């Protein structure tokens, strides 16, 4: 792809994202579509987030417990799990699961609407496709991903508790005290800012790729793949950038 095409695509993406956000404060508002999208993105993703978060928490505490056991630092397992899950793994894990389920769904749904001339039909009927299709998806992702992240964090901590107490035979009291210690304002802010940004990135990138679908079934496959791959890349890169910025703002020395 030529540099000019990349710049054009970035410009189109930027315009779509801005128009999608502007749609949140300008009439008409599509409440019903927004609620439907929140149901699809939030309630629909609940079970998979619960499952993934639970097992990630258990796997993480197994690894940490084993390593800390060698160093005689097993009592720090809870603290390490808490910090890792709340600040880093929880938001990223939820965002990646969300991308696979919701982002791919958005891109393929909008793509098939483009190919079936349904988006053109909306324009013919005087309906702005960005307000009708993109804005509700942006709102739903920006609201539901943080909610899912909090649920995921809680489940990861619970999964880790099971391993720490029943497999590693450590004190449950010490574990919960460690978790309570890491639940301070700095860590909560560091972990809760990210899902809002990730939600916006996933929805805007997926909607953009869906609306740019061209060329039948192969084009739809390409659009969905691009949506997932670009969302994942943007999550990982923005996670690094956000971590760096948040650590600086919150006064942590690196």
């Amino acid at each position: 792809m030529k540099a000019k095409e990349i710049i054009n695509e970035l410009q189109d993406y930027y315009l779509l994202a801005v128009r999608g956000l502007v749609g949140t404060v300008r009439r008409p508002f599509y409440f019903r579509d927004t609620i439907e999208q929140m149901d699809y993105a939030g309630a629909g993703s609940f079970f998979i987030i619960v499952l993934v978060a639970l097992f990630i928490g258990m796997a993480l505490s197994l690894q940490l417990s084993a390593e800390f056991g060698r160093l005689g630092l097993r009592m720090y397992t809870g603290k390490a799990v808490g910090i890792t899950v709340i600040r880093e793994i929880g938001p990223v894990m939820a965002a990646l699961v969300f991308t696979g389920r919701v982002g791919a769904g958005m891109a393929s749904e909008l793509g098939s609407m483009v190919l079936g001339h349904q988006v053109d039909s909306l324009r013919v009927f005087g309906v702005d496709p960005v307000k009708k299709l993109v804005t509700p998806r942006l709102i739903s992702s920006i609201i539901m991903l943080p909610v899912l992240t909090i649920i995921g964090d809680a489940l990861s901590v619970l999964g880790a508790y099971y391993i720490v107490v029943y497999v590693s035979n450590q004190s449950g009291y010490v574990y919960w005290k460690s978790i309570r210690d890491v639940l301070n304002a700095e860590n909560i802010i560091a972990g809760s800012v990210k899902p809002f940004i990730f939600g916006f990135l996933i929805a805007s990138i997926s909607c953009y790729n869906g609306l740019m679908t061209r060329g039948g079934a192969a084009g739809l496959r390409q659009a969905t793949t691009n949506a997932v791959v670009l969302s994942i890349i943007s999550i990982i890169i923005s996670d690094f950038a956000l971590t760096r910025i948040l650590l600086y703002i919150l006064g942590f020395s690196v």
Partner: protein
Amino acid sequence: MIIFDHVSFSYGNRSVLKDLSFSITDNERVAILGGSGEGKTTILKLIMGLLRPDSGYIMVDGEDITIKTESELRDVRMKFSIVFQEGALFDSLNVRENVAFCLREYAKYSEEELDRRVRELLSVVGVEQALDLMPDELSGGMHRRVAIARSLAAFDPVMFLYDEPTSGLDPVNADTICRLIIELSSANKGFIIVTHKIYDAMRVAGRFMFIKGGIVVFDGSREMLEKATVPEIQIFMSELRGTN
């Protein structure tokens, strides 16, 4: 009146229309013929302002629509009633909601009035029994008829645009759609039908345009079409002779 003045259009690097010029009056019954990928659907989208040409002008009732904004194009689009290829019904809505969609956007009907209007429109196209079905439960013919009903919903168009309205349909359903197209244009309203089915085009249209390589290689009446010497048109006409 629609005027294309030296219009060129391309999808990326693929040039589709090259310096295309023609004019169509409101009450004409025009069939645009041509092979797949020759830009027939693109012409309809350009008329509706859904695409913008790379160069040239498109005039609708004396106004250049290529310089209009999306909100200004709303008035232009209300002059036409378009039925997209395959119907383009919203697949998350049932037939009732599909037809009511436009009415909800444009008119402030009560739910009772809305229901009555939807039933009226569906009875015009003969599919009132499909009121509560979802689009994927409809047959191909019913799908197109519901799409026609939806296109009639809110506007009083001066002209109808049909994109491959009979493609993929069996002869009986294709015949029903052709009758409907003729009926709807009976009040001195014209239409443009884009198709590669010469038999259906011959049934409904009075003027024929043939697109090849992005330009109009033929523009004339039925009699002229039958005598045309363009090889591609003769291939199309051989299908008709086979039918007869």
